[in-house]
């Protein structure tokens, strides 16, 4: 059964069958990544444009690798040094690139909804690689893949997301996806970082880690975005670390082994201590590897639509 949409804009409203199809397809691509020649031909002749209007290393490399491993031709684009800085509109930029006969667009933009807008003005398939504080669907899909790989299921697991929920597209996409797949989702952080009305998405809210940790199966630790003057949201980095930093001592006190995830890049000893990030319960590097397989699955499934 094919995907419902010909774009991947977000997990809000995505059907459970669609998420399951993407996760199942990614298993096949994960196997390809273990081969001596990590390349298969299904996107031969297709051209994918990676339009990154906002900085990214990991996501851009992951998409680019996924595209190349499916034998697609890849166009790179970053806003610095392009006509965007000369005042060209998003629509004009995209339509100019599309005029060169491309088939798919992977887009990151600082404005929420930018990929949704793009999908209405161009013919290509659009994949959202992060739009402002809105969604980052492939990150949530790779998180769910990693959870399933580790626990064998998603349904019924207690997943807690810790950090700046207000400004996190990773949190938002994870909440939509995990709820659809039947997980119990909670968020934890200082009140200044929890959006009002977040309960309406069906999550439990905690302001103290120790209240929720003893029941958690999967802990997804968000990065503190020091560059987005997060300093206004809490008194000091040290205080944040003391209250919300994931440390070995805190986990031992909770008395429960849990899977530790982080979307990267990590600030060691801010939101997560170095020994926890490197511990056997941390799946941070598996997330990176699974990300390539998930993106291959999404590109493959959208390529015939």
């Amino acid at each position, binding site marked *: 059964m094919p995907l419902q949409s010909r774009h991947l804009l977000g997990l809000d409203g995505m059907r459970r069958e669609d998420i399951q199809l993407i996760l199942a397809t990614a298993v096949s691509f994960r196997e390809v990544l273990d081969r*001596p020649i990590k390349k*298969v031909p*299904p996107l031969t002749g297709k051209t994918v444009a990676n339009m990154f209007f906002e900085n990214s290393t990991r996501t851009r490399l992951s998409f680019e690798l996924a595209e190349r491993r499916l034998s697609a031709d890849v166009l790179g684009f970053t806003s610095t040094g392009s006509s965007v800085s000369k005042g060209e509109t998003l629509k004009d930029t995209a339509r100019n690139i599309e005029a060169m006969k491309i088939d798919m667009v992977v887009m990151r933009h600082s404005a929420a909804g930018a990929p949704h807008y793009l999908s209405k003005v161009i013919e290509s398939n659009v994949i959202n690689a992060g739009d402002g504080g809105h969604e980052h669907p492939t990150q949530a899909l790779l998180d769910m893949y990693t959870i399933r790989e580790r626990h064998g299921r998603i349904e019924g697991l207690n997943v807690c997301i810790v950090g700046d929920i207000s400004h996190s597209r990773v949190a938002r996409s994870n909440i939509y996806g995990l709820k659809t797949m039947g997980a119990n989702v909670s968020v934890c952080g200082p009140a200044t970082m929890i959006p009002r009305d977040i309960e309406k998405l069906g999550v439990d809210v905690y302001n103290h880690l120790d209240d929720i940790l003893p029941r958690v199966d999967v802990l997804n630790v968000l990065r503190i975005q020091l560059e987005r003057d997060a300093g206004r949201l809490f008194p000091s980095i040290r205080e944040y670390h003391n209250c919300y930093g994931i440390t070995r001592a805190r986990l031992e006190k909770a008395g429960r082994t849990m899977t530790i995830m982080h979307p990267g890049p990590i600030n060691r000893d801010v939101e997560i201590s170095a020994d926890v990030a490197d511990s056997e319960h941390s799946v941070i590097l598996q997330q990176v590897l699974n990300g390539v397989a998930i993106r291959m699955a999404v590109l*493959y499934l959208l390529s*015939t639509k």
Partner: protein
Amino acid sequence: MRKLKAQIMDEAGLDRTITRLAHEILERNKGAESIVIVGIRTRGEFIARRIARKIEEAEKVKLNIGSLDITLYRDDLLGKLEQPQLKSSEILFDINDKNVILIDDVLYTGRTIRAALDELIDLGRPSTIQLAVLIDRGHRQLPIRADFVGKNVPTSSRESIRVHVKEVDGEDSVLLMHPEENE
């Protein structure tokens, strides 16, 4: 619904054919030493396992058996409306310098075999690749020939061949079906 035209093999017939194919493979390769077995999903995988078991019984050896999902290598993938469900290939051994016995249930246009050859070559450099099929029904569209054939069945291209195996279909048989009535 297609109607049955003839039964080509029953359970005993299928077993005899698989036994003969196993012995022909052994004869051509002078034993089982360098052989690895690769079946094409879905039905070819089960035929491959049975041929492998016959070889193992005859030679008292243990063979490496793998399966290939050729979906990603199909030449009609981008034109298809319905995307086939992707399954994984499972070849957990080295095929370099081995004699790979590639096994499928029915040889028809040859396009599946072309895809399988491309995928195998991406996995390594076998010494030889030999093709064994249960049924060769003709109508090739590519210059591909099987090394071992269970049975040649002349067909019209509007007819179809159904290979049933116990593991999937609950019974062992090979059936020739009439063309679709509304065709």
